[in-house]
């Protein structure tokens, strides 16, 4: 049983780049736990410090649980309701394990761990009915609010679920949705300037507390760190609110617990939840006060002062009065730019291209080896073309611009290809030719897309 439990917890992470734990380290950790010692100096029942900081936007917060960090953002949207529940708003939860959090996490991959965590979050926040979904209804059967909660794990140091559940409920409490009014058929959504946004109606705050078990449940540790999670045999997660109501309980890892253990855990949970709820309410109260008084808020305020790794600078004025003269000066001093534009090349009547034909790398953003090679060349060429203008002479764009050519600079990747207005060609030939060109290019694009897919 031990083996299966052990195998299940690391296999939930992609074994790609994640560093494995050495047997030596594993033994050391287990021995320490047997002696009721923890690597970070905590006691068995100690919870790590929780810190909540709010962003400038409503419904945005970062929760730090020790070194584990989770970012939460709530957003809302008016959508038609589900057919079987025409008078209820829709709740959507999404936890993402960002590759920033640990080297083993891959973006957009549904790992076993991620599915498990998302399911737990859903059970904790949706199935506990802590959010009143009926108050999110605008017009029954037609329009309801969809509340979306995005959670991003920024740093993984164990106990993701607790940090995520705290971040989730704090963000939901902090969020304000726009006020709406319904007059007959008409639905008006008010901007924050017109009417104060309204908070969600939240009945209670469920918070998850995790317990790690070692040696088939002989030893118990609250709020396991990442290292402890790797050597644990089983995990028990209890979601509870401050009224001591259990919202969710889940035991995983395949250990068998006796009734007393579960009861003891639920008692510990009650204490921890009371502490955390108080902290959350204080944090929310603080933020509310600061916002009301018009003080400074946002992440900038949560950055510590007087720390060697931080730096702050006040608003800096930049004098741009004589910029144009300066620019002029630079242009006059600079060497005359080399002729970048060759003769326009005519492919078909009605089109013209300037410069060398460059393979368009747009749409090939996913890297594969072939793409990489092409990109390298294409890019160096493409950027050479683009950047040369900017970098080496720094002035050629200005020169162009000075000539008042009808060149529109845009941030699209297709800058190099400039279609000029044909002058000497008869106008009636134009649209057809253009269409043809467009079709062929589209076809080529589709072909490449297909090829890409085949490669994948």
């Amino acid at each position, binding site marked *: 049983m031990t083996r299966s439990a052990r195998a299940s917890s690391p296999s939930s992470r992609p074994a790609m*780049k994640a560093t494995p734990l050495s047997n030596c380290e594993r033994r050391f950790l287990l021995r320490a736990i047997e002696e009721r010692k923890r690597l970070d100096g905590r006691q068995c029942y100690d919870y790590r410090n929780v810190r909540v900081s709010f962003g400038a936007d409503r419904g945005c917060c970062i929760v730090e649980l020790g070194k584990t960090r989770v970012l939460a953002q709530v957003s809302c949207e008016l959508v038609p309701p589900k057919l079987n529940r025409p008078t209820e708003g829709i709740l959507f939860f999404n936890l993402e394990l960002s590759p*920033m959090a640990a080297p083993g996490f891959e973006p957009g991959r549904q790992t076993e761990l991620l599915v498990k965590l998302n399911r737990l979050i859903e059970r904790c926040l949706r199935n506990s009915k802590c959010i009143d979904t009926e108050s999110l209804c605008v017009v029954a059967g037609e329009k309801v609010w969809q509340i979306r909660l995005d959670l991003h794990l920024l740093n993984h140091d164990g106990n993701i679920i607790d940090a995520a559940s705290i971040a989730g409920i704090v963000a939901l409490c902090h969020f304000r949705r726009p006020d709406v009014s319904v007059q007959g058929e008409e639905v008006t959504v008010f901007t924050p300037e017109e009417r104060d946004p309204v908070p969600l109606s939240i009945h209670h705050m469920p918070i998850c507390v995790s317990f790690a078990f070692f040696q088939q449940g002989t030893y118990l540790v609250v709020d396991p760190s990442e290292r402890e999670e790797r050597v644990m045999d089983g995990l028990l997660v209890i979601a509870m609110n401050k009224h001591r109501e259990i919202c969710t309980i889940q035991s995983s890892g395949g250990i068998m617990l006796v009734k007393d253990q579960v009861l003891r855990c639920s008692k510990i949970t009650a204490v921890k939840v009371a502490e955390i709820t108080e902290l959350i309410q204080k944090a929310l109260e603080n933020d509310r006060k600061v916002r009301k008084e018009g003080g400074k808020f946002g992440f*900038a305020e949560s950055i510590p002062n007087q720390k060697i790794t931080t730096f702050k600078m006040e*608003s800096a*004025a*930049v004098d*741009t009065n004589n*910029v144009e003269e*300066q620019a002029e000066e630079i242009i006059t001093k600079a060497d005359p730019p080399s002729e970048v534009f060759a003769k326009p090349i005519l492919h078909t009547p009605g089109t013209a291209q300037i410069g060398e034909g460059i393979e368009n790398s747009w749409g090939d953003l996913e890297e594969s080896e072939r793409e990489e090679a092409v990109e390298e060349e294409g890019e160096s060429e493409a950027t050479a073309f683009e950047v040369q203008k900017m970098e080496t002479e720094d002035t050629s764009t200005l020169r162009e611009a000075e000539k008042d050519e009808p060149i529109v*600079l845009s941030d699209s990747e297709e800058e190099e290809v400039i279609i000029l207005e044909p002058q000497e060609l008869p106008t009636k030939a134009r649209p057809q030719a253009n269409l043809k060109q467009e079709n062929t290019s589209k076809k080529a694009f589709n072909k490449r897309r297909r090829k890409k897919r085949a490669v994948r």
Partner: protein
Amino acid sequence: MAGEKEKVVAAAGGCCLRPFSCEQGLLSRPDGSAAFLQGDTSVLAGLYGPAEVKGSKELPDRAVLEVLLRPKVGLPGVIERSREQLLRQTCEAVVLGVLHPRTAITLVLQVLSDAGSLLSCCINAACMGLLDAGLPLSSLFCGVTCALDPNGAIILDPTTRQEQEARAILTFAIDSPERKVLMTTTKGSCSVEEGPCFPP
């Protein structure tokens, strides 16, 4: 906040950068991490590397640089992809990848809040992250966003509203020793105007 800024701008008679702050090494797992804040815009960068390459991306002569930009809400889309590419090209120009052949450097940028000039904030966060990871760099770089308002005046470090009102938005990445332009991207139409770029 906006009113305050306008006052400062008026006092300066031209442009002004919003207050910015930066914190390095705030995450324990990544090899390098930094949060960069420009006004209410903030970006968190986490960096792993040089490390083992996953899959078949390995390059025999230099390090592979991978940039991931994660939006705050939803999944990364085309805009994120195009920004990732711009950021990758900028970083590749600066990172001395030749010193670490057959390795991978992964730079993950997480948007914490967007209140205008997001790309320049990403560039700055990326630079601070690279610096914190102790990777060999040929120079430092910074990002500046300029907006041209309908009257043709230059606004540095625009807010979201200023970006919406602007006729053109230009973002530059500039390296430190010679103030050369590493990357530039524009949106909207503009003519002779030149972005005055003072590295912060």
